[in-house]
């Protein structure tokens, strides 16, 4: 199997995720973009597993999902506290700390 197409696709998804982090102001959306990047990695892992005929890539994808779930917990907790304080989920508004 030629893995290149999958890897290119995962690269594209990764880039979309990265651009999402850069471009979207809403913290939730930015965070979702990060999840997208994780999933791009998952795709690459699975592709690798397929190429090499090994299972550990597939297992890795499961691990990543779990980690992503944990990240969601933490992330939402933080975003919610900030939202409660500021009544806004915009990442640009939290810019008191600078210089």
């Amino acid at each position, binding site marked *: 199997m030629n893995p290149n197409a999958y890897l290119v696709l995962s690269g594209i998804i990764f880039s979309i995720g990265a651009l999402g982090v850069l471009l979207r102001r809403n913290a939730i959306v930015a965070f979702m973009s990060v999840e997208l990047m994780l999933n791009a990695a998952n795709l690459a892992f699975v592709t690798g597993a397929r190429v090499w005929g090994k299972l550990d890539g597939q297992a890795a994808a499961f691990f990543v999902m779990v980690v992503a779930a944990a990240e969601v917990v933490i992330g939402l907790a933080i975003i919610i506290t900030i939202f409660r304080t500021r009544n806004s989920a915009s990442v640009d508004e939290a810019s008191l700390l600078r*210089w």
Partner: protein
Amino acid sequence: MIAAIIALPALSAAILLSLGNRTNKFGPWLAIGASTGSFLIGFWQFLQMLSRPEEERAVVTTVYEWLAVPAAGFKVNFALQLDQLSISFVLLITFVGTLIHIYSLGYMSHDENPRRFFAYLNLFVAAMLLLVLADNYLLLYVGWEGVGLASYLLIGFWQHKPSAAVAAKKAFVANRVGDFGLSLAIMTMFIVLGSVSFSDVNEGIKGAPAWVSLTLGLLLLLAACGKSAQFPLQSWLLDAMEGPTPVSALIHAATMVTAGVYLIVRSASIFNASEIAQTAVVVVGTISLLMGAVIAAAKDDIKKSLAGSTMSQIGYMILAAGLGPIGYVFAILHLITHGFFKAVMFLGAGSVMHATNDNVDMRRYGGLPKVMIFTTITFFIGYLAIIGIPPFAGFYSKDHIIEAALSHSWWAGAAVLFGAGLTAFYMTRIVVMTFVSKPRWEDDVHPHESPLSMTLPMIVLAIGATSIGIILTQNHIFEHWLEPVTGFVEPEPPFSIQTITIITLSVVAIGVLAAIWQYRKVAKVAPKNVSFVVTAARKDLYGDVMNEALLMRPGQATTKFLNIFDKSVVDGFVNGLGALTTGISARLRRSETGYVRSYAMSIVVGTAILVIALLIVRL
């Protein structure tokens, strides 16, 4: 024993200076005692030397090893050389020195701190003795700077007078210019000849190429100019008259300023080896003797006038020393006679000042013989001696110099003859203005004769000024005495000796008469509309103006510029680096915008750059 000659006054000075006010009571007496002791030891050494056959008269005593680096062949001993030349100086210094110590007892009696003055005098005597007794140039240099220091301290003795402090500093700095020459000369001796002792240098210079003796000669001449106030380093001497008068008599007339002559005579072998250097010496002597005389003729300040005279007389000596073996002996002879007659005149001037509330303006003197007879008589003897009237001392020494100069060249001869005329003119002017003319005293001045402590030294010195010339020139005693050290060649002037004497005396007579005519009436205030020459002479022939224009102004400008340069460029560079970094810091700081997306941006862009850079590195 020889060391004791130096040690006595040195020790006395150390005691007086370190114990301070506790020694006020006996201080002056201790100083006089030390000086007298030195003289007595010196005299005893002199007698012993006389008792030895001629070839054994010079003795070198090594006190200890002073500086020695065996690996480099560098060795300078603290060694004293007693020979005919140095003993002559020892006697002059300690004899005149002691007399002036005694004189100072009276002169400084009203001062608040005579103890310090005597300490400095002792210090001077010690340094001067070290200068003349040293057996090598480096030790000589110690004495050389030592007398410079003593001179500095004594000129500035009345330190509360700003003018005195400035004059003292000027003297020291001018001396240092000379010292510059002397130290270079010493270093040259060492690297070329491998030694700095007189005997080694004398020996080594014989085989040395011409440039060595020329270089050394010119450097030593520079040293002599500084110390002896010769052109172009003359200007300090007139200012040095700010010091107490005994100092002027001892240091700035009789002894220290003549050290330059001593140096040249001591270095005879070097100068003998270089005709150019000798000519340079003669030229310097000639210029100085004329300059000094001209200045002396225009000053109304009695001490400055005498100082100009000193410069002129030392010009004679330097000129004579530049003539080579025909002149060395006479240079020293004139040095000794001058020591007596100039000292007596300075002491006389001091006595007059003492009597007139320290006024130095000759235009406010006059009519003094009636009130201070001893001073008048002794001063007059000095006057006769300096203008060269036989049988007074100056006649013998100066006449010989004129003979020697004439046998050297017509211009040197003409210069010394003209100088003799000028000498007669300015000295007559001094005598007329100070003593003979009608009184022009300040209102509150009541002149009186000085105390015995002052008149006695003057009398003794006057006796010397009268007799010493005859004594020393009888049967060429002095020529024979010094010949083993300096060498001697009979001068062969183009005219007979009698002719020369007659010519000289006529020139002197013209000078005397001219002065009497000129100063038949003396104004209380110096006339303003005078000729260009007089104006120039009153301003020391623009010596100070030249110094200021050529050295001080550019020097001050340079230091100011360099100070700004140091602050703004050298230090500014460092500070600028600091400011630059801080500036960059303030700019860079703004990159930390506080927006999380801009941070993410730099992470992503950084990643991209990293990936690309790595790809480039790999490919």
